[in-house]
């Protein structure tokens, strides 16, 4: 009588398995269109609408050659590395810190794109393992329902004004690598002095779980001013305009310099990849850096890294920017985090 149960369970598992097998036949690019020799490249990139657009335009020319895993991929790549092997051929997006980590682990293929010659000088790093592909900047945002343009903060130091007590929001450096870069740069901007962070703490700075979320918090009025990556705020303003209303968010490009959090692109080291695929990966990197690729990213709010592509609306023609010292942050990651913690939670 027990074997009957076994049969039932076996048949249920079998039918489940059947359903799954049927499902795995649903059109997945790898299975339907690829021959082993054909060039094929897997790209991890986000955000999704930008990834979809880049894929569509690239494939219109090259055919169905990309598998695009769109969305945030840092944790995914970190887990794949832990499991032994990164499954992506090209990485695009996030911020330099993960590329520094991967470069340190010998995971990135050096490549200098011919398009890189057209890069503005401030985006040339000299390093060939990854290329800075989109300009993204940490700026000040404020909510104009609560703050007038006259009293709005104009410099980083204005955020320490007592009138913003409990009303400033910044991304949490512990939870977001871009927010980490912002906090470290603020220290760097103040001559590697942590008093700025102490003053932020004393002003009751609120934390958000990432550097883009600050825009959401300021727009809602939970905080009145904040530090956030410019594209998040720009997209919210643009969306409101499209809907015929006005977003309460206003961007301020601080006098001391907006903090650059550029989005790189890189090719992953993979000995097993065919030459044709590697060539295609290089072509994709070229495409991201090309006039066309930069134009697509600009529509999404990112600042082009080359001079011959106009910046999106909402970006001032001239602004001062500071580049964080990514190497210093990478080398001192643990110490900088501990210092931040001891200020924010101790003392």
């Amino acid at each position, binding site marked *: 009588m027990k*074997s009957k149960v*076994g049969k039932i369970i076996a048949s249920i598992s079998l039918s489940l398995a059947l359903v799954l097998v049927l499902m795995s036949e649903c059109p997945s690019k790898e299975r339907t269109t690829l021959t082993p020799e054909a060039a094929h490249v897997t790209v991890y990139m986000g955000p999704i609408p930008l990834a979809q657009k880049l894929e569509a335009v690239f494939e219109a020319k090259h055919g169905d050659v990309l598998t695009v895993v769109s*969305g945030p991929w840092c944790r995914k790549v970190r887990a794949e590395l832990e499991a032994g092997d990164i499954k992506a051929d090209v990485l695009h997006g996030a911020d330099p810190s993960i590329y520094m980590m991967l470069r340190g682990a010998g995971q990135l293929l050096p490549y200098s794109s011919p398009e890189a010659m057209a890069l503005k000088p401030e985006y040339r790093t000299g390093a060939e393992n990854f290329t800075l592909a989109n300009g993204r900047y940490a700026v000040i945002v404020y909510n104009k329902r609560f703050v007038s343009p006259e009293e709005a903060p104009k410099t980083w130091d204005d955020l320490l004004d007592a009138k913003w007590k409990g009303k400033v929001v910044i991304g949490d450096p512990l939870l977001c690598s871009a927010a980490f870069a912002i906090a470290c740069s603020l220290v760097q901007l103040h001559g590697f002095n942590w008093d700025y962070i102490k003053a932020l703490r004393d002003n009751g700075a609120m934390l958000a779980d990432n550097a883009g979320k600050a825009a959401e918090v300021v727009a809602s009025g939970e905080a009145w001013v904040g530090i956030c990556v410019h594209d998040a705020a720009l997209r919210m303003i643009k969306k409101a305009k499209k809907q015929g*209303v006005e977003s309460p968010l206003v961007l301020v490009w601080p006098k001391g310099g907006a903090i650059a959090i550029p989005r790189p692109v890189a090719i992953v080291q993979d000995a097993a990849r065919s030459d044709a695929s590697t060539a295609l990966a290089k072509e994709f990197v070229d495409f991201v850096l090309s006039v066309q690729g930069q134009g697509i990213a600009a529509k999404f709010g990112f600042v082009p890294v080359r001079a011959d592509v106009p910046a999106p609306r909402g970006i001032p023609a001239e602004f001062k920017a500071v580049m964080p010292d990514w190497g210093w942050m990478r080398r001192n990651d643990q110490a900088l*985090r501990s210092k931040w913690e001891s200020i924010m939670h101790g003392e």
Partner: protein
Amino acid sequence: MAMGIAGISLLLLVAYPLSLLLLHSLEVGGRPTVSSYLKAFAERQNLVALGNSLYVGVAVTLLAVLIGVGTAWLIIRTDIPFKRGFRGLIFLTFITPPYIGAIGWIQLLGRAGYLNSALMRAFNLSAPPIELYSLEGIIAVMAIYLYPLVFWATAGVLERTDPALEDAAALSGGTRWRVFTTITLPLASPNILSAAILVFIHTISCFAVAAALGLPTRHYVLATRIYAALSHYDVQMACALSVVLVLLSGGAFLLQRVLLGEGRYTTITSRSRRPEPLNLGRWRLPATIFLAAFTFLTAILPLLTILSTSLLKAWGLPPALGNLSWGNYLAILQDRLIGSALRNSLIFASLAASAGALLSFVVAYISARTRLPGRGFLDLMATFPLAIPGPVLATAMILAFMNPPFVLYNTPWIIILAYIVAFTPFALRNLSGSLRAIDPALEEVAWLSGASWLRGLKDILLPLLRPEILTSWILVFLMGLREIPLSLMLHTQGTETVGVVLFSFWETIGVEALSALAVIVMLVTLAGHLILGKLGGRLEVG
């Protein structure tokens, strides 16, 4: 046989990935070491977070039990009106995803929230009088979100407890209260404790609410510390801290076993009849008003907030009529990914729900009905993955299923398996208490009368447990449909889920678009719930 299959699937799905994770946490730079653990405990903030997690976990559990048992008693055992309506509202409380719920509560109770603004205007205050950004804020929001789990578990047993026991106690002169505390509650305790464990473990591993309400005032719990470690690419630290969460949940699990002991909790016997509802008399109106006010505040108000947000033309505008439109819903219709994402999520979540319900029935049966050695371990193994935050669990799945012998990465399978591992605990904790409440004599009689083992199961046990099995199914389905972190790490082109689109809307458009899609997901869940109700008779959760 069944034990073998359940055991093997748990070993493959749970023990294998998580032991790989453990191994990786014990290895830095290729050498075996416990340095990650030493480092984890050397950081004072991790200890603070541990204390916060314990405080929040215990407080949420106590509150959820209090509210869950109280509402269940009122709705099931008294003559309070609108029972179905109240049950519906309690269901609505739970199907609101916590990441949206937290935003809704911020709109209501945040520093610029409706209540604080009104109070500041009314009393001319310079600072908001209510501070939602605190551990207590997390506790309140989590308790409201999770008490329905206790409600269902308690309602299931109160509905079917043999009133003969209570009658006997009442006849011997016990007061109503005494009967309730000495007879009814102890009989329901396996269900209540089972749900309490679920609430505790889910609370300590939940990131969304702790991040939204704790971070602004720099309060960390272990779950936020784990995300922080991952953000600095420190997988070892994230694993080490996850192990702490697992140990905490293991402790809660053991505590439950000790509390229950080997007592008999059979409340459903051959002579069972439905208990008569208690006449509340002059307390009926106050009780009704109280319950109506409570469900209005905890279910309807947040939902109205979410609905109005989903109609906002832009986040940050007040919900005035001129600022509302169907634009966000139209944007969902135009999204290129949403069609396939919905299809994928429906398939993945329903497969995971079926497998989860089956697996949890087998595990619950073995644990309640047999004396097989290792049955407690089986139960524990199916439960503790709930303690591991999504990104860490996804990391474990990648470690296990990216390389031979099991290459499932970049197929739909890995997402389905992750859903099964992550959400079966909901099904299991929901079933295991109820199974204990059913007198084994019922099946034994069937077998004695010549029925096969399977027949006894099919004709006696399954019909009695049908409401719980369906509830289990819908719980796993619901969690799978709306989850974000597992999908984000495990999807590839073609296997994107609703969770991936939810995240994308949030990141690239804003809270209003996220809310609109969340409303759609909630409607799909409600539809699934109604269909199941039609198929399987009345549901416990409705």
